[in-house]
């Protein structure tokens, strides 16, 4: 187990990528704040969630190193994301038709 971990820990991405991702996250946050002041009607939630999803992807894949991990971890994350998506979908069946 420890050998495999060392293999991943040795993977170096350099600070450059982290700074780019950080700037991207800041940029996306400012877009969220800006859009909050604009009335997008029924698209408001969709846009906000899309931006949040992109931010989550960046954090999970780069900062949490999942991009460089074994497929099993990606499967785990995928299961969690799918569960969340299904929970969202089922909740919308209430919100939309209420």
């Amino acid at each position, binding site marked *: *187990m420890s050998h495999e971990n060392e293999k991943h820990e040795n993977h170096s991405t350099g600070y450059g990528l982290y700074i780019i991702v950080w700037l991207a996250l800041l940029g996306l946050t400012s877009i969220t704040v800006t859009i909050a002041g604009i009335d997008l009607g029924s698209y408001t939630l969709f846009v906000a969630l899309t931006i949040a999803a992109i931010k989550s992807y960046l954090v999970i894949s780069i900062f949490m190193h999942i991009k460089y991990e074994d497929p099993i971890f990606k499967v785990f994350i995928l299961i969690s994301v799918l*569960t969340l998506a*299904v*929970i969202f979908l*089922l*909740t919308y*069946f*209430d919100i939309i*038709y*209420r």
Partner: protein
Amino acid sequence: MSDGKTVATEKSFYEEGTTKSPKGIKSWIFSTDHKRIGILYLCSIATFFVVGAILGILMRLELIAPGRTIMDAQTYNQTFTLHGVIMIFLFIVPGLPAIFGNFFLPIHIGAKDVAFPRLNLLSWWIYITGAFLALLAITMPGGPVDTGWTFYIPYSVRSTTNVSWAIFAAFVLGFSSILTGINFITTVHRMRAPGMTYFKMPLFVWSTYATAWIQVIATPIIAITILLLIIERFFGVGIFDPALGGDPILYQHLFWIYSHPAVYIMILPAMGVVSEIIPTFSRRTIFGYKAIAYSSLAIAFVGYLVWAHHMFTSGISDTARIIFSLLTFIVALPSGVKIFNWVATMYKGSIDPKPPFLWVMAFIFLFSIGGLTGLVLGSLATDIHLHDTYFVVAHFHYVMFGGTGTIFIAALFYWWPKMFGRMYNIKLANYTVVLYFIAFNTLYFPKFIMGYMGMPRRYYDYLSEFTTLQFISTIGSWLMAVAIFLIIWNLVRSLKTGRIAHANPWGGVTLEWQIASPPPLENFHEVPVITHEPYDFSQLKEMDYESK
């Protein structure tokens, strides 16, 4: 009785610890040995169970006759809330995984310990911290919570009792659950002995594994919900309270998105224990091993998708109601798969009706009633009539107590000789099953009838036509108190006076029965190599097992 191969020369984990001294309180509360942690959980969880049971008995005593009997209405509200909070968060959610999962999961897969032993100890400490916070919520000025264990909005925002403390306790307890889950998932993936493929794992491991996934994925949702509720209480931010512009149904969604899968956190490990006990006492390999293993995963998955069946009368959309009702019926399928496979395992088996097996028989009967009445409540039309009545109370007690609670006791009777190296009084244990079964049905079956007649749950008082059934139910609570006392007395007494248990008193073939009772510190002297199927009873010959 029966005999198994014993290795009497080695030191047990009681004589050898992970701390400097193997004796004394510190050797327990700072031990990273999964078995000691399991027993720490057993002591703490059993204590809370007794407290919760006493509160339940007091509630039943209050309801023995209409009007005030022993407590006022506010105390009654606080008593049923506390009963629910203790039984759910401190007993039944952690119960089987934390005690028996900790003790037996590593042994079952041939490992020396869990993947993260120190994290395991931390889980127990977090559990105790959460329990301490819950205790503070009772004793602090403001008084115990009176909202019911579901903390429904808007009352939980407005109640002047210590709601914030109580839900913060639940928040902390959630972390204990998540850490245990992460530990078990990692242990199953990384710590299996050579030859222990996924489909050679005992079914208890499968169900604990499925449970661990729910613990990890679902528990954060209640944590976030609790934080939102605390923010609303302290800062008046309108999230759930309609008076502040919030949506109370959103709270119910979030609460049940966790709390319904939590029902499966409670019942799945119990189903795993059943899958261990039935083959051992039928001397037959389990019928449909893969079907049972997959049905655990299916229950864990579909269990996520049915939460709104708790909310059929809350004002959710008709479309949502129909979808959730359908999904609720679907979750009954994997449960049915398990029941039929268990019964098929017993068919033409060589049944040895020892106490653990008898408890499982009681479970199958009680859990089937609980499960089938769940379908009555999952149907939209009948739920309108029965929602928030005693019918619901009876249903979930049959599932939770009749299901998980009964198996908690079955697991104790099954694994007690392994955990403590002592055998309890078998005859008394047999009588106790009968008493428990009678007590259970006397206590809870009248609630089905009262619920059908329209008796609402959580009411302090009732109309005179319910008097007889309420009285019978209270008598049942006294019988139950006697049964629980006899169980505890029988087990605790065996620690001193019980005869020494053999390594394999029941003729089981999973790995825990192939090591000494109680097990040595690192479970196995050499790493076992697994060559047999998990319930291959031809191994008994190799194990020199002789039954008389």
